[in-house]
């Protein structure tokens, strides 16, 4: 019967418009919520109107892209941050860097060469040798400290990746048990997408979502998150090389992107590389100075002994404490009397310019590091704008626009008013029919 249909039609409209207004309200409430995906009621006509689903307006393709680029950004950001930290260890150009210390060291030999009987100049050389050796020890220590920090960072990161993986697995269960196309499920999907972003930023991985809306994550072909459970990761440092492995099997997990990859590179490659470079500086210093010392005679006419001991930046130390031991003379003593000749000290004052000098190697190190840092900064910056581009694309598709929601709110409100008016009209018509008919002539 048409009349009664009219009432339920109007009622369905009232309900549908109210639901739509609720969703607009939900969207407005979440305008600033990170990772929120805007929703829209899907209305279908039937007897009246039906809310067939609450859509989550998001493109899966863009989400995948965002995760991939986000992981790459994490990796590159770590690389650039680490290089900037290493650069602080080599503060050049400045008066506190090794270059200035070496300059002063060689100058000290020139002072001795001018007057080999000048004890103050000799003591100055020994002091400066201690300064240079101390600087090298410190720099190595600071590189080691950076590496230690990043090992701790990696451990923390793996812990949070595990909890993100766990969260995805738990949300998979919750989503499979909930009714699809409702606002509640949509919020679970948002939460899962956030956890996926967190996991991807940390360790990368391949993300797939099947028809049943289950998210699976694999890492180098091995399952990290399945439909109901996840495999935990752990950090391993036993073999001298730091790696991330599967907690259950102790096999090494394949990590090729994400922040974890940046950390692993830092610990296993970057720090050891610059540390080794510093060692070549120290080795050159030790060999050049000791060889020159051996070619001369000290204040007492005794053949020069080694000034430095050690083989690397970590263990270089000054072997002589007595300033008389500086082999300034290149002339052997005659009749047991030492020569005042300063030619050997003069030769040592030029060790900073000879081929293979520690200065040259150090300068190469600083400049190479400078170029590497500059390149890493630029790459990270490019990746950042690339990622933020994708984010803004996602945002433009999934983010809430207040004006749009206001317009929707208006539309639905008007529709609600109109439906109410329909109800009133039918009501009045029925009232006429019931109360006014059959009263002719009364």
């Amino acid at each position: 019967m048409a009349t009664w249909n009219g009432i339920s039609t109007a009622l369905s409209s009232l309900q549908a418009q109210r639901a739509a207004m609720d969703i607009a309200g939900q969207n407005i409430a979440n305008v600033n919520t990170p990772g929120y995906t805007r929703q829209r009621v899907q209305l279908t006509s039937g007897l009246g109107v039906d809310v067939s689903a609450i859509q989550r307006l998001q493109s899966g393709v863009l989400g995948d892209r965002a995760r991939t680029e986000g992981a790459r950004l994490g990796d590159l950001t770590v690389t650039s941050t680490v290089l900037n930290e290493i650069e602080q260890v080599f503060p050049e150009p400045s008066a506190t860097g090794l270059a200035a210390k070496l300059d002063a060291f060689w100058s000290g030999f020139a002072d001795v060469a001018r007057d080999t009987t000048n004890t103050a100049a000799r003591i100055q050389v020994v002091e400066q040798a201690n300064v240079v050796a101390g600087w090298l020890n410190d720099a190595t220590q600071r590189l080691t400290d950076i590496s230690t920090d990043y090992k701790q960072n990696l451990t923390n990161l793996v812990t949070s990746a595990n909890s993100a993986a766990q969260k995805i697995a738990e949300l998979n269960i919750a989503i499979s048990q909930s009714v699809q196309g409702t606002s509640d499920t949509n919020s679970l999907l948002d939460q899962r997408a956030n956890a996926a972003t967190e996991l991807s930023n940390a360790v990368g991985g391949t993300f797939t979502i099947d028809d049943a809306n289950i998210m699976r994550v694999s890492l180098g072909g091995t399952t990290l998150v399945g439909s109901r459970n996840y495999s935990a990761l752990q950090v391993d440092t036993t073999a001298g090389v730091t790696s991330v492995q599967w907690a259950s099997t102790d096999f090494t997990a394949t990590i090729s992107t994400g922040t974890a990859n940046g950390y692993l590179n830092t610990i296993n490659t970057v720090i050891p590389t610059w540390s080794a470079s510093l060692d070549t500086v120290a080795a050159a210093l030790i060999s050049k100075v000791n060889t020159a010392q051996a070619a001369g005679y000290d204040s007492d006419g005794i053949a020069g002994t080694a000034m430095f001991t050690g083989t690397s930046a970590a263990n270089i130390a000054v072997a002589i404490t007595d300033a008389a031991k500086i082999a300034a003379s290149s002339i052997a003593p005659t009749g047991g009397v030492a020569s005042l000749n300063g030619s050997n000290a003069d030769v040592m004052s030029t060790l900073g310019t000879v081929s293979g000098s520690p200065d040259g190697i150090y300068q190469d190190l600083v400049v190479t590091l400078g170029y590497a840092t500059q390149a890493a900064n630029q790459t990270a910056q490019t990746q950042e704008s690339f990622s933020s581009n994708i984010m803004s694309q996602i945002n433009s598709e999934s983010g809430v626009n207040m004006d749009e929601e206001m317009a929707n709110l208006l539309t639905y409100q008007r529709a609600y008013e109109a439906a109410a008016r329909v109800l009133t009209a039918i009501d009045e018509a029925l009232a006429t029919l019931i109360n006014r008919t059959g009263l002719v002539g009364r």
Partner: protein
Amino acid sequence: MTNIGRISSSSQGLQNMDSVASMQKRMAQLQEQVSSGKAIQRASDNPGGTQSVLTLRAETARTSQYTKNIDSGLLRLNAARTQVDSINDQLMKVRELVIQGQSSSTPANVRSALASQVDVLRSSLLVAANGDFAGRPLFAGSASVSSAYDASGNYVGDATPMTTRVDDSGSTVRIDINGPEIFGSGASNAFDLLTTIAASLRNTPADLAANLASLDSVISTARGAQATVLSRVNQLNELHEVTADRELGLAGALNAVENTDLGKAVMELTVQQTGYQAALYATAKVMQPSLMDFLR
């Protein structure tokens, strides 16, 4: 901004924040440059420039040592020059005495007095020969001795020259002259000759002619030494000029690479500030209105 149809409220805010933040970063860099006065704060700011700075600084340190080498060499050579001049004067006096003694009209007692004067000049020469500079004998080479000649006039120094480095090419300059180079060596050295002359004056005036010939040879050696010292002084004086110019050049080059071009940096900073303010203004204008402002 990306070319997209739909803009969400938060992406609008984020984008504005991005551009404002990048401007702040650039401003902070410029401020650092202006306040520190250094154009290169860290190697990655300008790796090539860093290389130049390190090279130039090392070269500056070396050049300042060359300047010190040259100056200390000059002091030593000037001290030597004073002594060599006086040595030459005294040898000329000896020559006059010999000529006086050679004359047949000079009586024996006068010759004896002349001989005494020669003895005095010999001691005086020995004092000059043992002159020192900064606690080290001037004419003893590199020997660790307290004086170049012993009391009887024997050279106890060595023949190792004192040299000093004056430039990166490894050129060295001698900054001394040793005893034998002034007084001659072996049997014909000045001190032995003066002893012989004194004896000739006293006992065998006939030998004086031969002694005079020997003396002329000694004087010629001493003159040669005087010329050598003078030329070394002149060489060092020239090198002093050259090195001073080099130091100035290096300071200029270093300044150009290392220091902030203040005018340029301040100008750029002002431009950045204007841009920053414009961005803030635009953000404030764009972010404010929404549909709500126009609904009743």
